[in-house]
């Protein structure tokens, strides 16, 4: 008895299911995650409440604004606004640190290259599963001829390209490229707008992060010996 392939395929796939034990195990993992998330949200809310207190102090200050208008405005400008910016900067900083830690960890592992080439066209041909085109970075023009190859990786759960260069006779440099989305990666400096890349250290390595041509780029390399001879 023949049936439509669509219905038969649907029936066959829907016949596949996890058993009770497997479901219970997954539910436990999800529940644990839910509890952690709720705890984090509550923590953020309580932080918000303490910020609320600051706001009520501000409302008291507003009375002074009536009498000391200019001086209170200065207080707001110099003390309150920077603290709000500071909170935003902190969450941005933690995203930058997460990215730096992740790429540094990847660099340390030095997993085998999936494609060995010095040619960007060949790289593009290899990376068929990326939803962007890998590009040379203008920050690495000196290293163009020293490209060793590349492999897939992921940054913050987004599929990325990892391109390795032989920086000098001993050290290697890894360049990571992933489509830039400020919601996922935070606000990062865009070198196309003449902004300076972020330079930080993570896991004993030097990490540089910037945005170029719509891509988040990060390089990881050994810390030069001269900067350690202090």
């Amino acid at each position, binding site marked *: *008895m*023949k*049936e*439509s*392939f*669509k*219905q*038969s*395929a*649907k*029936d*066959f*796939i*829907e016949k*596949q*299911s*996890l058993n009770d034990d*497997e*479901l219970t*195990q*997954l*539910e436990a*993992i*999800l*529940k*644990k*995650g*839910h509890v*952690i*998330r709720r705890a*984090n949200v509550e923590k953020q809310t309580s932080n918000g409440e303490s910020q609320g207190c600051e706001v009520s102090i501000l409302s008291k200050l507003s009375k002074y604004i009536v009498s000391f208008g200019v001086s209170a405005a200065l207080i707001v400008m110099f003390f309150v606004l920077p603290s709000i910016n500071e909170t935003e900067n902190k969450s941005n900083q933690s995203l930058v640190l997460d990215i730096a830690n992740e790429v540094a960890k990847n660099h340390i592992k030095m997993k085998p290259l*999936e494609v060995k080439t010095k040619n960007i066209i060949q790289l593009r041909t290899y990376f*068929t*599963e990326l*939803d962007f085109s890998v590009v040379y970075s203008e920050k690495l023009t000196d290293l163009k001829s020293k490209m060793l190859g590349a*492999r*897939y990786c*992921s940054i*913050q*759960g*987004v*599929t990325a390209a990892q391109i390795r260069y032989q920086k000098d006779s001993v050290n290697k440099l890894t360049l990571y490229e992933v489509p830039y989305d400020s919601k*996922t990666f935070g606000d990062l400096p865009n070198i196309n707008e003449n902004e300076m890349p972020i330079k930080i250290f993570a896991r004993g390595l030097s990490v540089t992060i910037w945005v170029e041509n719509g891509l988040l780029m990060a390089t990881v390399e050994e810390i030069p010996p001269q900067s350690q001879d202090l």
Partner: protein
Amino acid sequence: MIFERKQIQRFYRYCFSLTGEPDSAADLLQTAITKWISLGQPGNQPISYIRRVIRNQFIDDKRKENSLAFETLESDSPLLIDENSLEDLRVNQEIVEFIFSKLNSAEREVVYFWAVEGYTAKEISEELNLARGTVLSRLHRVKQKVIALVSENEEASSKAQL
């Protein structure tokens, strides 16, 4: 976020469509859910986001095995001209499992979205971030394989009857 069992089973079936094998599908789902939690459970549309984590995890796992998650398509691969032509395909239910085993992960994935989720080629391309042509090409290959396998099966049964 706590999902209902029905939704967890849907994630599992997507994993099964990628791996083609029940045990590795369960492993894939567990790894992906754990990863999603460790990322802070992001995504305004968690179902779609988790499917993306599952897919990326599948690609990662395949890489570790030094194999390709999704076969590369030739740029001139034929496309499925009429999407509705797939709806006309008819098969014996007994050979569906066999057909499924003959499809590769990319083909099983589009079959999952088309048959189970009821997506069109355009919707599949949006979900998977692929060009619509790539999806149509995969659906075309599915159609060709199904036709060939059904015909092989019919020949074999008629020989057996003689």
